[in-house]
């Protein structure tokens, strides 16, 4: 299976970041600030709340134990995303062996026409999360990942490109298709 993200790298030292080992207050603040982005990415990427809880727990435990491996060349956010995605990918490797995975991207793309340029209308917000999950589940891993990462406004195209080991132009091109496919799939969930 092709790697979705690059392996964790040891980054060079930069002043001004918390020292290892993290003090309880520092770790609590780090968790408070970043737990939602980690949980949300795992939740929507894997589509399983229990697995998302496991990933979030494991990611932050690893951060607590291995914070000395973060040297600050990338942002803390990017580092956390990298760890999260590697955990998700590890979970998926055993999961895919048991679950039939179908990517409908191409089939949907054929019928997408100009759907992506239209706004997405939502009448009922109660089940919005379920509808978003269904639409994301219909995307390939790569398209789903790119949409989730770029939806985070703290992440630039360059950072997403570095995280997924491709050029920013490639990310833009794939996102164009991902948006269109998502729009069609989302409409089908109504």
């Amino acid at each position, binding site marked *: 299976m092709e790697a979705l993200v690059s392996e964790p790298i040891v980054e060079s030292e930069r002043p001004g970041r918390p020292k290892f080992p993290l003090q309880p207050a520092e770790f609590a603040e780090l968790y408070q600030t970043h*737990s939602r982005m980690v949980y949300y990415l795992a939740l929507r990427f894997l589509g399983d709340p229990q697995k998302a809880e496991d990933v*979030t727990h494991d990611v932050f*435990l690893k951060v607590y134990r291995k914070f000395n491996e973060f040297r600050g060349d990338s942002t803390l956010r990017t580092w956390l995303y990298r760890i999260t995605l590697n955990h998700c990918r590890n979970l998926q490797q055993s999961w895919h062996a048991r679950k039939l995975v179908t990517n409908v991207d191409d089939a949907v793309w054929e019928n997408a026409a100009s759907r992506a340029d239209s706004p997405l209308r939502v009448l009922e917000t109660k089940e919005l999360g379920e509808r*978003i999950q269904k639409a994301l589940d219909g995307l390939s891993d790569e398209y789903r990942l790119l949409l989730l990462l770029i939806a985070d406004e703290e992440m630039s195209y360059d950072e997403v490109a570095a995280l997924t080991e491709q050029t920013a132009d490639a990310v833009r091109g794939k996102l164009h298709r991902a*948006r269109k496919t998502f729009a069609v799939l989302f409409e089908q969930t109504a």
Partner: protein
Amino acid sequence: MKRQVKHTAQEQEQEQISDIKSGTTSAQEFASAEELIRHDADQTVVPPAIAERLARSIEELPKPAPSWWRRLLDR
């Protein structure tokens, strides 16, 4: 620059949510998939059980070995 865009988008979403709650409008509109996903992320609550489980796991981690001078003093 990015932060300002985020702030504005969040404000718009909050206004839309308020409108829906007050019954003044029946639909929300999102300009893109990213905006919709962002809205979903903002509404997502991290289960408190994760923090509790994490605290327990950290408690159970082996404590770092004492330094050589501490071991010497403890003899």
